[in-house]
């Protein structure tokens, strides 16, 4: 009997054939459609007879208007039905555990180690109340303190708050600290402008506005760097601060960043470094070296904690010593023996988030950093950047794709590509290519708005994907791009292998049709 080369059968012309992916399509009803009167998913503990006897009819003590008349029309399901419903819906979701998740550029979709999730699920953390006596929470305070020391070394800054609930909350905290700083100097009325860049996350502009600032946005110069001349023209005695990312979402490192900081300092403003894109520069360059006053890290990005469909997360906010007095309270202090919570900061901006932020995320991030150490973190940056430049080389072999700006320059951890040429030649848009890619089990994200780079596509491979996986991703995108030229209709009518087909968009922007809840949908469509 002749031997078969089983693996080779999965190749064509020496290259692996594309997966015959098909996303789960359970046609899973909306949970209310599964309801049958009387079914129960869980029982609640019985009330002890003596409690009942002593307490009496507690509902009768409620004033008339405060006792609920009709029970909430929640669905009624048995427990196995609930489990199957959610298990099916989970299969209709493409998490980073499943796909080569390099297409959500700026999001740093790296591997979230399972051991860290397990460590954070420890009852010794789950069952802690945030107002417990300090003596009973020495363990979690120690983790928070130790992790702060790690962030101080990674950034070169002096104090951190782990309270903000994600990157945008940290940006807001930083703006609030900037405001408090100018207030303390009696200049808050005069300094009413914040400068940011168009390739920084929209929350930089939005948080500044929310905090009451006028926003000035710098656009890129011809090389893709934020325009230095525009910055010089923008700064004045009205400048409160600069919020800037580096490398920006283009993946281009701005070598003049120290000059940007100097110019803003010269005008009396503070500089805050949005380190959402820190993954490629860990151990390479820091906020301190460029003289930033504040920074923040997204622990759910650079520090590997899982994204959870959009949180819970932590935006760790760091400042120079001079600004520590403005940080949210409490801070964790250590006297060499005991850890304690310090609420006694006279100039604190107060609370940015509840209690101590999301300590479980801190535990995961701490475990991740401790599993790598200084060399490991440097390896993370090195491989993330190698992967990115490798991916860039392979992607640019695809006809119709290009990268704007900084010709011939290396990129750091991500790249914003442009399908402008392909769109001109085929009429197929970047979003459509991304949706078609989902037919093969991967996806990509275009860009924040506005699309400064036309027909954008932002890829960030991180350190977590193998060369073969990067090759597979490129093969899928190449295939889809080829289809755009040979059979554009199949791309434009995508998805074909997804959970659902093309969704009607119009209802989402029409108040008479939009429905954010099932009850609204039934009312508007079903005539309930």
């Amino acid at each position, binding site marked *: 009997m002749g031997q078969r080369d089983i693996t080779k059968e999965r190749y064509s012309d020496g290259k692996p054939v594309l997966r015959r992916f098909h996303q789960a399509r359970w046609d899973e009803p909306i949970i209310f459609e599964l309801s049958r009167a009387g079914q129960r998913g869980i*029982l*609640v503990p019985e009330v002890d007879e003596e*409690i009942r006897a*002593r307490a009496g009819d*507690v509902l009768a003590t409620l004033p008339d208007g405060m006792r*609920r008349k009709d*029970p909430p029309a*929640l669905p009624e*399901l048995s*427990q196995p039905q*609930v489990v199957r419903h*959610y298990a099916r819906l989970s299969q*209709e979701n*493409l*998490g980073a555990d499943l796909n080569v998740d390099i297409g959500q550029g700026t999001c740093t979709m790296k591997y979230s180690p399972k051991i860290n*999730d397990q*460590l954070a699920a*420890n009852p010794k*953390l789950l*069952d802690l109340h*945030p107002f*417990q*006596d300090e*003596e009973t929470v020495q*363990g979690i305070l120690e983790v928070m303190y*130790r992790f702060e020391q790690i962030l101080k070394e990674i950034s070169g800054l002096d104090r951190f708050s782990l309270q903000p*609930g994600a990157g945008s909350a940290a940006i807001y905290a930083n703006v609030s600290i900037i405001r408090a700083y100018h207030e303390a100097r009696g200049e808050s009325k005069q300094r009413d402008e914040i400068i940011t860049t168009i390739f920084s996350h*929209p929350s930089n502009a939005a*948080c500044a506005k*929310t905090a009451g600032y006028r926003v000035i*946005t710098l656009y890129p110069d011809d090389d893709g760097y934020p325009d230095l001349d525009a910055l010089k023209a923008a700064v004045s005695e009205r400048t409160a601060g600069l919020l800037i990312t580096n490398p920006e979402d283009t993946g*281009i490192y701005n070598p003049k960043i*120290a000059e940007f900081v100097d110019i803003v300092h010269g005008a009396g403003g503070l500089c805050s470094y949005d380190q959402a894109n820190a993954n490629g520069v860990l151990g*390479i360059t820091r906020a301190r070296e460029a003289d930033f006053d504040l920074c923040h890290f997204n622990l759910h990005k650079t520090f590997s904690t899982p994204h*959870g*469909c*959009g949180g*819970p997360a932590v935006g760790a906010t760091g400042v120079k010593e001079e600004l520590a007095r403005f940080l949210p309270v409490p801070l964790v202090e250590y006297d060499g023996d005991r850890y304690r919570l310090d609420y006694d900061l006279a100039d604190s901006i107060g609370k*940015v*988030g509840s*209690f101590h932020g999301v300590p479980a995320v801190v535990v995961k991030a701490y475990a991740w950093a401790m*599993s790598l150490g200084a060399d490991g*973190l*440097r390896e993370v940056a090195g491989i993330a*950047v190698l992967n990115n*430049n490798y991916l*860039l080389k392979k992607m640019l072999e695809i006809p119709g794709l290009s990268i704007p700006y900084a010709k011939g320059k290396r990129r750091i951890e991500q790249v914003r590509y442009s399908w402008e040429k392909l769109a001109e030649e085929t009429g197929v848009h970047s979003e459509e290519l991304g949706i078609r890619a989902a037919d093969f089990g991967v*996806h990509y994200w275009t860009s924040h708005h506005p699309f400064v780079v036309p027909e954008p596509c932002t890829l960030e491979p991180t350190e977590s994907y*193998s060369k073969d*996986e990067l090759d597979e991703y490129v093969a899928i995108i190449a295939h889809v791009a080829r289809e755009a030229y040979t059979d554009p209709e199949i791309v434009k009518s995508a998805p074909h292998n*997804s*959970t*659902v087909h093309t*969704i009607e968009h119009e209802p*989402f*922007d029409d108040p008479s049709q939009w*429905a*954010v*809840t099932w009850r*609204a949908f039934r009312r508007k469509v079903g005539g309930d």
Partner: protein
Amino acid sequence: MSEQRPPDYPYIPNSVPKVKEQMLREVGAESVEEFFEDIPDSLRLKGKMNLPEPLLSEQALKRHVEGILARNATARENLNFLGAGCWQHHVPAVCDEVNRRGEFLTAYAGEPYDDHGRFQTLFEYASMMGELLNMDVVNVPIYDGLQAAATSLCMATRITGRRHALVSKAIGAEKLSKIRDYCRPSADIELVGFEAETGQLDLGELKGRLSSDTAALFLGNPSYLGTIEQAGGEIADIAHEKGALLIVDVDPISLGVLTPPADYGADIVCGDIQPLGMHMQFGGGQAGFIATRDEEEFVMEYPSRLFGIAPTRVEGEYGFGDVAYERTSFAVREEGREWVGTAAALWGITAGVYLALMGPQGMAEIGEGIMARARYAMLKLDTIEGVKAPLFSTPHFKEFVVNFDGTGRSVAEINRALLAGGIFGGKDLTQEYPKLGSSALYCVTEVHSRQDIDRLVEALREEVA
């Protein structure tokens, strides 16, 4: 470096030297260093970061982290009566089962075609909350109840075009601190007191402070101090007469038995969903919700994402997407409403699981059971010489103020003694509410048995004797 050496970093596939070299060759680079050539020397970190030695094996890491966490003493090992915004409720196993699934845990921001499951679960979460709250619009969760309170107030200022906002004094210090910081540019916050005897909002003071510039009255019900407001409808009428909105901050687990605020006239309802299936985890299980009627002027003022349902091109199939996306900062940066970003979506999915498990009957039973236990605890505590429980003569839900003035003891002293006996006493209110004397906020839920409550009572009786 030996080529045979296995990679040091199991999380970093291409750290294998051979692979690294091959990739470098393909991109025409000598070393990884070349990729950093645009970073000026003056900005480069000289030398190596000074970090602790790594724990390379999973076993060593586990031992290290578990060793530190072992120093905590938990509410599972002790008897806990702390609440004040983070509450100890039973977490159904199915909640953890679902939120630990990698498909949900490791997803982020895919399109509706990639992450149909995320959109549907969050739509269903909002839909079930909508039933609980009797409102048609509920947002995708934001960070926590603090943010929900602050954003609700900001929404009210935009909807009404007014700056003045009234906030009931029966509010936690942390929430008030957040509101003061966050709303400063858009709202002038003024406090309204409550009646010393009943804890009910002082309606006379409310009327005096309301003006034609008042955007909203913000009221907790149940309040931070556990009291149930009796005059919800009257308060709504008073506010509405002046053109102000009523914002009610509500504990969602109370709504199986308590009237949803919309029914007594609330225009915006907000709160924290932590009670619905999230472990306390040192305060890390919080997530905020905001709900309103389905009116365009309200919907357009949400900063958060709103997931809507719509047909697809195949009959009978539903799809999902962002409702009124153009109002968000994702779409229009600083021209959007406040901002939107990563927050606490996984807890929304989890709360949906919780409500699906509980159903209407479960929510009614748990609400009544909590009220009965809390009332039992108050009655028993009140029998202790020098202890007054509750301090306010009004119905309570799960929290209530216990006053120790008659014992001559401070809450700190009492709590220290309780802790020595394995009991976490209620939150000390001495600093937040100096006028309440030696008072603490106690929380009783369905996790407390009669024996638990009796144990607290006996420990206190002994301590203050």
